[in-house]
C-alpha cells in the first residue's frame, strides 16, 4: 500500500511549486506550461536533489515513485486524448500543397540531422542492446517533434490562431505530430519485437489494422452520439463523460496489449472524435482542469525526477548537449523556414513559422519518457534531450515576438478561429 501521507505531500509540493513557477514564467512572457516544465526539473535531482538531498529523499522516496508515475500516466493518457480531440485533419486540406511541403520538410530536416548525429552518439551514449536503426530513428523522431498543444496555446495567447501564419503553423504541427507518433510507434514496435515477452508480429500488425478499422467505423459512430447529445441538450451527462473516458482507456489498453504504447490508443480515440468546434471546446473544458492543473504537473515532476543535469558531466558531454540543441534548432527552425520561403512566404513570415515549429514542449517530454522506458536512450541522453526541449520551448515566445512583433499581426483571415484548433 502506498503511504498516503507521502503521496498527498508530494501532490501538494508538486502542484504548489508548479503554480508558483508557472506564475513567474507568465510574468516574463512565457506560456504557463514552460514554467510547469521547469518546476518539474527543479524538483528532481538536478536542483532539489543536489541542493537538499535529504529533503528530496524525504519528499520523494524512491519506493513511492511508482504511485506518482501511475497517477501521472493517467494524466498523460487523458491529455493525449485531448490533443487528439483538438486536431482537425479536415483543416489541413484548406492550405493546399504548400502545407504538405512545409510540414514534410519540417520533419525530414531535423530527422536527417538527428539521425546523422546518431552516428556519433551511438558508440558513446548507447549500448548493444539497442540497434543503430532504432537509436537513429528515435533521435531523429525526437528532434522532429513539434508541441502542437503548446504551439496552439502561444498562438491563442497572441490572438494569432485565425491568421495565415497561425493556421499554417497549426496545420504543419498537426502533420508533424501525427507523423512523429507513427515513427515512434514503429520504433516501439521494433524494440518490443526483439524482447523475450514480445507480442507476436502477426498479432501486432493484424490487431492494429483491425483496431484502427474498428475505431474508424464503429468507434467513430459511437462517439458521434456524444456530439448529437451535446447539440440536443447543450451538455453531456456525467454518464456520457464516463463512457467517453472508458472508450479512451479501452483504446489505450488495446494499443498497449498489441505491443505499442498506451498513449497511441488515447491519441487515436481523440483524433476520431467529432470535430464540431463547440463540442470540442466543451469536451476539452470538462477534462482540462483536472488534467492540466493536477495531473500534468505530476508528469512534469516525474520527468524531472528522472532528469539529472549532473549526468552531463565533462566537456565532451556538454559539447554533445550543445550540439543536440543546435542541430534540433537548425533542423526544425531552419528547415521549416526554408520550406516556407520556397512556398512563397516572405522571409519574416518564414522565420516566424520556423520559430513556432521549433516549439517542442510537453510532446517532446512524452516521447523522451517513452524512449527511456523502452530502453532506446540512456539517462544521460534523456537529460540532454530534456534540456533541448526546455531550451527550444523557452526560446519560442521571445524569438517569435522579436521576428514577428505584435504590431505586424494581420487581421485574422477567419473568424472561426476555434475551428482550427482548441488549445489544450
Amino acid at each position, binding site marked *: 500500500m502506498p503511504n498516503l501521507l507521502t503521496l498527498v505531500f508530494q501532490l501538494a509540493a508538486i502542484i504548489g511549486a508548479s503554480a508558483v513557477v508557472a506564475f513567474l514564467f507568465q510574468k516574463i512572457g512565457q506560456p504557463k506550461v514552460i514554467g510547469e516544465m521547469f518546476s518539474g526539473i527543479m524538483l528532481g535531482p538536478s536542483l532539489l536533489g543536489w541542493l537538499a538531498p535529504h529533503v528530496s529523499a524525504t519528499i520523494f522516496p524512491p519506493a513511492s515513485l511508482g504511485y506518482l508515475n501511475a497517477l501521472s500516466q493517467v494524466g498523460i493518457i487523458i491529455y493525449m486524448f485531448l490533443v487528439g480531440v483538438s486536431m482537425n485533419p479536415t483543416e489541413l486540406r484548406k492550405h493546399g*500543397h504548400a502545407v504538405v511541403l512545409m510540414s*514534410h520538410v519540417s520533419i525530414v530536416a531535423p530527422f536527417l540531422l538527428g*539521425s546523422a548525429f546518431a552516428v556519433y552518439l*551511438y558508440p558513446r551514449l*548507447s549500448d548493444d542492446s*539497442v540497434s*543503430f536503426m532504432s537509436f537513429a530513428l528515435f533521435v531523429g523522431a525526437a528532434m522532429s517533434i513539434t508541441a502542437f498543444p503548446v504551439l496552439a496555446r502561444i498562438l491563442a495567447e497572441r490572438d494569432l490562431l485565425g491568421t495565415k501564419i497561425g493556421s499554417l503553423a497549426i496545420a504543419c504541427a498537426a502533420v508533424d505530430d501525427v507523423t512523429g507518433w507513427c515513427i515512434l510507434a514503429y520504433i516501439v514496435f521494433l524494440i518490443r519485437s526483439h524482447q523475450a515477452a514480445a507480442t507476436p508480429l502477426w498479432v501486432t500488425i493484424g490487431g492494429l489494422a483491425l483496431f484502427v478499422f474498428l475505431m474508424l467505423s464503429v468507434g467513430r459512430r459511437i462517439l458521434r452520439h456524444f456530439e448529437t447529445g451535446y447539440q440536443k441538450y447543450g451538455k453531456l451527462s456525467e454518464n456520457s463523460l464516463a463512457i467517453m473516458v472508458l472508450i479512451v482507456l479501452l483504446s489505450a489498453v488495446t494499443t498497449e496489449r498489441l505491443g505499442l504504447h498506451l498513449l497511441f490508443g488515447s491519441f487515436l480515440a481523440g483524433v476520431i472524435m467529432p470535430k464540431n468546434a463547440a463540442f470540442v471546446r466543451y469536451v476539452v473544458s470538462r477534462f482540462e482542469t483536472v488534467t492540466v492543473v493536477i495531473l500534468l504537473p505530476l508528469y512534469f515532476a516525474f520527468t524531472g525526477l528522472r532528469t539529472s543535469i549532473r549526468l552531463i558531466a565533462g566537456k565532451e558531454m556538454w559539447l554533445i548537449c550543445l550540439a543536440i540543441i543546435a542541430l534540433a534548432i537548425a533542423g526544425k527552425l531552419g528547415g521549416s523556414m526554408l520550406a516556407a520561403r*520556397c*512556398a512563397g512566404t516572405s522571409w519574416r513570415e518564414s522565420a516566424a513559422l520556423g520559430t513556432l515549429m521549433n516549439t517542442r514542449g510537453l510532446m517532446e517530454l512524452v516521447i523522451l519518457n517513452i524512449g527511456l522506458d523502452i530502453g532506446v536512450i*540512456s539517462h544521460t541522453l534523456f537529460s540532454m534531450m530534456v534540456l533541448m526541449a526546455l531550451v527550444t520551448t523557452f526560446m519560442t515566445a521571445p524569438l517569435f515576438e522579436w521576428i514577428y512583433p505584435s504590431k505586424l499581426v494581420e487581421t485574422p483571415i477567419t473568424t472561426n478561429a476555434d475551428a482550427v484548433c482548441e488549445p489544450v
Partner: protein
Amino acid sequence: MSRSKLIVAYVCLVGIPLAAVVAILWLGRQLVAPLSVAGSWKVEADFSALGSDPCMAPLTAFRQPFLDVSQSGGDLTVRLGNPQKTILPGIVRGRKLRIGAASAEARDCRDPLSLELQATVDGSADRRILSGTLGIVGCTICTAVPFRAVRGNR
C-alpha cells in the same frame, strides 16, 4: 506555387534528405556500441574467502541484487546492494568491465567505496554473464575472490 516548382522543391527538400536518412541507417548498421551491462545483477561468490573480518564486514550486509547498473555508452553508475546503497563508477571497454572508485577515495577495507570488481562480459545481450574477481582496493591482507554474476531485471 506552380505544380512543377512544388515537385522540384519536394524532391530537393524532402526526397533527397529522406534518401540520405536511408543511407545513414544502412551504413550505420556497421557501428559497434559498448556491450550492454545495465540492469540488476545477482553475484555468486564465496565471500568468506576474502579472509579477514574487516574485509568481510561490509559484504555480509549485502543483499541481492548485488549490483544495480545504469549505463550510458561505456560509462557505468553502479548502485551496490548494501544498506547505504553505495554508488560506484564503472566502465566497460570491449569485453572488459571494471567497477570501483579510484583507490585514493577508499579509506579502509570496511568502506564499501574500497570494493573493486573486474570482470569479463560474456554471452548475448539477453543472456549476459559477468565473470571475474571481487576485491578490496589497497588491502594488504585479503585477496580478490572470483565471482560470477547473472543479470536479472533491466
